[in-house]
């Protein structure tokens, strides 16, 4: 019997990476930190907030050891399930490891870090949810970026023109503006759907058209109409959820936020329930997996695709409003800065499920939040490197996971009625 050929799988590559990472941590930590350096992690503000003083060197060495162990375990490959679980668990330890390393000799607030990650994940998670709505019915939507941009721009345009007309009714104006953002996101999506369903345009090409159009349209609108500066940039107000906000430690962080942040969770749950527990969701998935079969049992494939792509754009438009109306209170050229594309990666990461996408979004949100936190902690790393983090994370995650992530079967294929 010939020996089994050695196949280099993705697991091996990851295991080897983990071994290297573990060795690097074990070798680097003793040189970089004194034995008595303490990283203080606080859970809340103020002096009496609960906290944990972690001995920097020891903690990093322990984490490095865990990396080494799980990597070796996976390389031995005797117990595949156990080693995979170990890899995932120690993979998650990268978050505390980085934070503890950065906060050596200082203190940092873990709660605000988590809250910031969640906040920065909002547009990514909403964008990913938007992607799920289109892609589950078989329409590739790489135009989330463009739809977000349109939402951000026209939402702010509405605020810009309505604010002087309706003084005093700020909240109403903001609400209308968010709705305008949603509508314009939907309009861009309708164009995408029209091109790819009515004209069978390659959906990736059509999405690129939307992206280019959105960049041109929004910078044109900004340059022509939105440049006259006005003082006082207003954004959506914080809403404290009564009762929940009083929960100690996490209450203020989670339940005293802005509306689109809450909408993220509402959308996640709604999408999950609709997709997996309603007849409508079943039809959606059928159209995305096997449109011929769906058509045979009387589902209108074209209508489902038009409808869901438009809904996708409306959700993306809401994500766009996060930039202009919830965060900045203004509109800048290309202010979405690639979040729409990262959202796609988060969607693929989550295997086209809402909660999986939420996990992916959190990962990118954390990478994003880490950048600002590093600057606060004065870690001597160039800011540009930290800004690369979300994009590098995306590539690593996609390389590691996409092989096992399967897209809806009929995705990208125009449906032709027999």
């Amino acid at each position, binding site marked *: 019997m010939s020996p089994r050929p050695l196949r280099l799988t993705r697991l091996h590559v990851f295991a080897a990476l983990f071994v290297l990472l573990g060795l690097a941590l074990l070798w680097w930590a003793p040189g970089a930190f004194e034995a008595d350096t303490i990283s203080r992690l606080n859970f809340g503000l103020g002096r009496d907030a609960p906290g944990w003083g972690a001995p920097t060197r020891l903690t990093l060495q322990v984490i490095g050891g865990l990396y080494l162990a799980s990597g070796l375990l996976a390389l031995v490959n005797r117990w595949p399930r156990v080693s995979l679980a170990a890899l995932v668990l120690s993979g998650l330890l990268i978050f505390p490891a980085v934070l503890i390393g950065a906060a050596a000799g200082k203190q940092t607030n873990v709660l605000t870090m988590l809250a910031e990650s969640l906040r920065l994940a909002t547009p990514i998670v909403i964008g990913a949810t938007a992607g799920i709505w289109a892609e589950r019915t078989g329409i590739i939507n790489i135009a989330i970026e463009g739809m977000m941009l349109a939402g951000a721009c026209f939402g702010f345009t509405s605020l810009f023109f309505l604010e002087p007309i309706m003084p005093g009714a700020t909240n109403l104006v903001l609400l209308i503006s968010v709705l305008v953002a949603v509508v314009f996101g939907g309009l861009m999506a309708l164009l995408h759907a029209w091109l790819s369903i009515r004209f069978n345009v390659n959906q990736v090409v059509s999405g*690129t058209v939307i*992206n280019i*159009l959105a960049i041109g349209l929004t910078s044109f609108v900004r340059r022509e109409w939105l440049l006259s500066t006005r003082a006082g940039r207003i954004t959506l107000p914080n809403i404290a959820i009564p009762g929940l906000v009083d929960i100690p430690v996490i209450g203020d962080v989670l339940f005293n936020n802005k509306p689109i942040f809450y909408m993220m969770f509402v959308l996640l749950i709604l999408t999950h329930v609709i997709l997996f527990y309603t007849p409508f969701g079943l039809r959606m998935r059928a159209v995305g997996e096997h449109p011929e079969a769906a058509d045979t049992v009387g589902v209108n494939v074209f209508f489902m695709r038009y409808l869901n792509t438009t809904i996708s754009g409306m959700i993306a438009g809401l994500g766009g409003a996060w930039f202009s109306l919830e965060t900045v209170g203004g509109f800048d050229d290309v202010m979405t800065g690639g979040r729409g594309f990262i959202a796609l990666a988060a969607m693929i990461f989550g295997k086209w499920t809402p909660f999986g996408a939420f996990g992916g979004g959190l990962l990118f949100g954390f990478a994003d939040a880490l950048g600002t936190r590093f600057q606060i902690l004065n870690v001597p790393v160039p800011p540009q490197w930290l800004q690369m983090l979300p994009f590098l994370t995306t590539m690593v995650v996609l390389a590691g996971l996409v092989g096992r992530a399967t897209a809806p079967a009929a995705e990208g294929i125009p449906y032709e009625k027999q």
Partner: protein
Amino acid sequence: MAEITAETHQSQPRQPSPGRMPRNWSEIGSRLVPGLAVVTAMIFGAVFMVAAATDWAAARAAFSADGVGGFISEVRPGIGRAGIAYGALFEGAAGLGYVNPSSIRAETFYVTLLPLGERSLVFIPRNLIDTIVRTIPFILAGLAVALGFKCGLFNIGAEGQLYAGGLLAALIGFHPAFRGLPSLIHIPLAVAAGIAGGLLWGAIPGFLKARTGAHEVINTIMMNYIAIRLADWLIKSREPVIMLDTTASVPRTPFVAQSAMYPYLANTSLHFGLFVALAAVWLVWWFLYRTTLGFEIRTVGANPSAARYAGMSVSRSVVLAMALSGGLAGLAGAGEVLGVQHNLSPGFFAGVGFDSIAIALLAKTNPFAVVPAALLWGGLINGAGLMQVRADLSIDVVKIIQAFIVMFIAADQIVRALWRIRARRRGEEVVFARGWS
């Protein structure tokens, strides 16, 4: 009746051969579709110009006062501005203008073609030359994306690859270690470095696609953002200084040595890069249609399963196509550094990536057709400045026109319906890109 015509039309195999004259409007029109798409896009662009140039409050007031007539009289100046805008756009792009010669700046050389009283038909060679200079990177970058499409790959990462190429070319160009080299060595060295940078930047997403199946659309976009941040850091970093010219008031690299600059042609801004670009066009065509590797790439693009069944290595073709695509984009970046700017500043290549996609689509991935498509792009962008001055319109309207051009090229049924041209025959479709799998 119409059905019968369609049937007879299909029953006769009519391949468009270069020797045969087209017989009716539909056949002429089919060849004109790209041109008609451009015209349609310009008409759509005019709508935005009129919208921007009209005082809508006054128009509404006039409408309620004098009805439709009043409304039209308010909108008419906007239509006039759109006309002025397109005139200026054309003058800025092609150098042909119907203007008062005294309005042309004194130092600008021009030829009066037709004196027509106060205003004359003049030709300003400099505008046309500037357009051609602008066209050079678009030819190469458009070629890069077209090559990717031939393999069924969507390279959105031309921008990042331009940065990778531009950074390396600039480094070789200005680094003291390479100063004093003769031009014959220095220029090829800098160009090779540029190609190598782009090659690497393109090969990474290609490798990831071939090896792990990660889609190249996402990865090339991520590589774009990484390249932008990398360039920003390399050029701006002060501790340590890496590629920053500390004597300059704006962040940029030092100027490349004289010996690394592309030679200029006859005292104009036209540089040697034009020949590089045209040679690349021919080379890409030769590679795709006259070599085995090129054939394999096209086969993988047309049908990966068939290619695999025929014993071709799909992975090799994917990596090779992405690497070559990146190399071409890197060459474009090197050309801008060595021929035009002579240094590199952060943000210099912003937007070229999307432009090159549009050009490749406009050319239907045909290497030779990339040249006129790129010329159109160079013209639009070069003319936009004059348009902004003359018609007081934001240059972003050009971006809208460009987006519409791509849209009408991609969905040419819209153009065919608008201009009454019969639908295209089967088999004329061009492969662009694939879904996530």
